[in-house]
């Protein structure tokens, strides 16, 4: 095995571990926002590491995998932002807050303002 193959395999292993942790996070977290947190971060680094590993194993694909990594770095957080915002506006799944901190929802005022404008 050459040094490139070893680096590539290690990167793919790390990527798979983080993707697994992301899946476990989506299973264990209580509400949609915490699930998005676990899902977005773990899948971004997981996919990046995995694709970079493929680039190391197959050196002629290296530039293509770099482009894909840049696209993932831009599109992943945007999609999670869109999901979180859409869910908050639809009030489909409530935001779970810890018992003693009910006032920690700074976004509610925006939604209430919009609701008032819709009614008037």
């Amino acid at each position, binding site marked *: 095995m050459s040094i490139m193959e070893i680096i590539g395999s290690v990167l793919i292993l790390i990527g798979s571990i983080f993707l697994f942790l992301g899946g476990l996070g989506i299973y264990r977290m209580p509400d949609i926002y915490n699930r998005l947190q676990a899902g977005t971060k773990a899948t*971004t680094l997981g996919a990046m590491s995995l694709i970079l590993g493929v680039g190391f194993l197959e050196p002629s694909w290296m530039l293509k995998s770099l482009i894909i990594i840049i696209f993932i770095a831009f599109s992943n957080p945007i999609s999670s932002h869109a999901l979180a915002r859409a869910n908050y506006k639809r009030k489909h799944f409530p935001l779970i807050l810890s018992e003693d901190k009910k006032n920690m929802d700074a976004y509610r005022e925006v939604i209430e303002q919009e609701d008032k404008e819709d009614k008037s």
Partner: protein
Amino acid sequence: MQTLSFSEKVQRFILNWFFMMLVWIMFTSTFATQEVVVGAIVTMFISMMSISMFTCCTLKILSPVRIFWMVYYLLVFIVALIKANLDVARRVLTPSLPINPGVVKFKTQLTTNYSKMVLANSITLTPGTLTVDVIDDTFYIHWIDVTTTDPEKAFTEIAESFEKILLKIF
């Protein structure tokens, strides 16, 4: 959409063309004449059509000082991304699930849309935070472990290190 002077339009067009050509050459991974010529023609038409929509800045973004800060930003960002993943791993693997979620808001000094987008994306990928919405200059952040609800303290903890660098780039 803002109104642009002619020289700004030309600079944006050249910058856009350059980056599209870079992506094209990286994807094809070759310098064969036919590939490069077809790529140059197609990217020229696309960047001409999208001057006022998909371009962010004039050619001054390619000055060495700004490129230095961009590389520095990239390093800071990668360190934060790895930290965020270790943080997620720690929270997920701890049996008691140590979370204390809430939504906080803070204001930013950034003005252009592109810098705000980069800041919002970076915040989503750094430890324990997720951008829910950006309205004008106010960011609404879902924070997995809230330590403060005060906007200024939240800003110092979440975004200050990124914003300092972004102000130097844009």
